[in-house]
């Protein structure tokens, strides 16, 4: 029996495992992504869109899966697992780049002098203990003087001189100074940005303005609003706010439109602000209508009459 024809037919149904493209597909197995850079074939695209898209997608997936099978694998309870390489595609970052931090005073100085930063080891070798200890911090070497059992006392020391306390005070003073310098650095950075920092301190550039403003306020805060106050020597005259008016030669069209907007604003004002009888502006003169309908007896009579009729109807 010759099965070659059947086999050939079966083989023809299967599509090629290898994908051939004019421009090779770009694979990023780390992100499980395939990019097809080939230009769209206009003819088949217009002819049958769905088929075209399916075939393009199929090619891409085929290439990706082929690449996945070539990856190194590790076996697990669920079967072999492929080890994905790290993603190769460069994605843009979501957030903007961080702004450079303002330099501290020391950093500025070091840059000017060309001093390079030297990384120092945090640990030092302790000969006595025969081990590495921290320079500072937990069991730090800088606390040795405070805990040693015998201390040399200077000849001119007071009677109540406590060497361990003095050493501790010196250490704490260093810490306090460092903190002080840190805060000053922060304040300097804030001032460079021109905003008052969290301690309420205003940068010098604004402070002068604020003082001038306060001074101007106090000068007109007397009973005579500053008119009859004794002036100090060298005190300048206060400058008020200058009024600003439109130019006299604005175009008539512009003026007309602005006037009409003012007029429309006036119309929109609440009824309470207007004169009591503003009904005259509407098309229907309510008062006149009521008089005509009620025969000059007023709206109350009209309402009573209407109510009475309604009651009669109910009964």
């Amino acid at each position: 029996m010759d099965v070659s024809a059947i086999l050939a037919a079966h083989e023809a149904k299967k599509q090629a495992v290898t994908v051939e493209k004019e421009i090779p597909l770009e694979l990023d197995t780390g992100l499980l992504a395939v990019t097809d850079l080939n230009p769209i074939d206009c003819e088949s695209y217009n002819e049958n869109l769905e088929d075209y898209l399916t075939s393009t997608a199929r090619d891409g997936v085929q290439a990706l899966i082929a690449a996945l099978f070539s990856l190194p694998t590790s076996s697990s309870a669920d079967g072999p697992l492929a080890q994905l390489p790290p993603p190769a595609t460069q994605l843009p970052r979501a957030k903007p780049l961080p702004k450079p931090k303002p330099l501290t005073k020391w950093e500025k100085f070091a840059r000017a002098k060309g001093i390079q930063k030297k990384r120092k080891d945090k640990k030092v070798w302790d000969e006595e203990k025969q081990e590495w200890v921290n320079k500072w911090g937990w069991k730090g070497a800088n606390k040795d003087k405070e805990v040693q059992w015998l201390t040399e006392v200077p000849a001119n020391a007071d009677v109540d001189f406590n060497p361990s306390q003095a050493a501790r005070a010196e250490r704490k003073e260093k810490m306090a100074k460092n903190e002080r310098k840190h805060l000053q650095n922060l304040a300097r950075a804030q001032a460079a940005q021109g905003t008052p920092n969290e301690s309420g301190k205003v940068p010098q550039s604004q402070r002068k303005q604020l003082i001038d403003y306060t001074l101007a306020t106090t000068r007109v805060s007397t009973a005579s609003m500053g008119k009859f106050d004794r002036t100090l020597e060298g005190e300048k005259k206060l400058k008020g706010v200058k009024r600003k008016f439109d130019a006299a030669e604005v175009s008539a069209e512009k003026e007309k439109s602005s006037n009409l907007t003012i007029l429309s604003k006036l119309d929109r004002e609440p009824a309470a602000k207007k004169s009591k009888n503003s009904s005259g502006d509407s098309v229907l003169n309510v008062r006149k209508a009521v008089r005509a309908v009620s025969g000059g007896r007023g709206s109350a009579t009209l309402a009573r009459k209407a109510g009475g009729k309604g009651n009669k109807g109910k009964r």
Partner: protein
Amino acid sequence: MRPLTEDESKIVFTKLANYIGKNLVHLIDRADEPYCFRLHKDRVFYVSESSMRLAISVARPNLVSLGTCFGKFTKSGKFKLHVTALDYLAQYAKYKIWIKPNGEMPFLYGNHVLKAHLGRITEDTPEHQGVVVFSMNDVPLGFGVTARSTVDTRKLDPTAIIVFHQSDVGEYLRDEETLF
């Protein structure tokens, strides 16, 4: 001379609207020639754009008057209509009152309008409404504010005041120095 600020325009327009209501639009949006409001030495002038442009070249101390003087701003910022605005008010007035010939002279001497002198009045004039006063042969004499609504005037006695005097053409003689 300068255009009115927005606040000033508002004050002037509310005052004018008291007399001519919605017809105020016809003053601002004129078909014949663009007109505008200008303030000069506390006085508000209603002037055509062409003559306003001519007046720009006149120095402030030398400029006495231009266009039609509508009124003036008092020192406290209120706006007072002058009799010179009567032409426009009479033309567009919403509520009018006509007085009998025997009441013309008392009104022109600055007195209020009494009920005895009342000839005709626009129907349904509300209380405290700005009205223009006419003589019986339709000559505008001045303007004022109603003391009572039209309905209420019926019950009043003849000596009761029905329109408070605000301005009359007699001022052209009486206040000649200060009017313009």
